[in-house]
């Protein structure tokens, strides 16, 4: 299980490959992955950039707790969470969640749980820079269900 807070841009596919290389091949039959990326459009406005503030310490604590809850609820072989902080450009990845399991039902459900829990509990806050120069805090996340 790994939780990584990234202040630089990261490649989710390389991160997955690197992490999976550390697992025993043949043990997992199912890998479910989610990648959230920065869109250049939100709530009807063009977005030029974003700054992600977080609460160092609590962020890692909450993400590790969420991963541990998933591992209690489903038979998982491993979990990976990456999350960007700081200044982010459109199209850059913001978040990566991944789980490895023997079977697909556990992988799908646990991975979705990770993302929904992260969205509602992990202390990150987005501030958007619009193309007209305005800046605004994103007030709440869109519902996942």
């Amino acid at each position, binding site marked *: 299980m790994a939780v990584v807070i990234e202040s630089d841009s990261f490649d989710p596919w390389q991160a997955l490959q690197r992490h999976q290389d550390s697992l025993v091949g043949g043990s997992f039959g199912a890998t479910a992955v989610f990648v*959230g990326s920065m869109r250049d459009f939100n709530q009807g406005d063009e977005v030029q950039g974003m700054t*992600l*503030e*977080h*609460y160092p*310490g*609590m962020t890692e*604590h*909450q993400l590790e707790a969420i991963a541990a809850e998933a591992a209690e609820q489903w038979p998982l072989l491993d979990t990976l969470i990456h*999350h960007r902080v700081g200044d982010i450009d459109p199209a850059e990845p*913001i*978040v990566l969640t991944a789980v490895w399991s023997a079977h697909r039902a556990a992988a799908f459900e646990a991975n979705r749980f990770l*993302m929904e829990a*992260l*969205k*509602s*509990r*992990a*202390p*990150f*806050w*987005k*501030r958007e820079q619009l193309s007209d120069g305005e800046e605004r*805090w*994103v*007030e*709440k*996340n869109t519902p996942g269900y």
Partner: protein
Amino acid sequence: MAIKVKFFASLREWAGQSEVMLEPEGLASVADVLKASTGERGGSDSVLCALNFETVSLSHAVKDGDEVAFFPPVTGG
């Protein structure tokens, strides 16, 4: 020791500070910490509180050495 208080995002801007250390005397609850650090008496749906990295309610007890944080609804992911 002391109670460390942190503010994040729009609440940091509203409070005009990101961190303050309070003497623990007279501070029994998270609500007391909010009032002592900002003058605000109550919370609202848009003020969330954490105590030592766990989300808690305003009525939760505090003690010397605790870290208390106030922030708006989270918007990560």
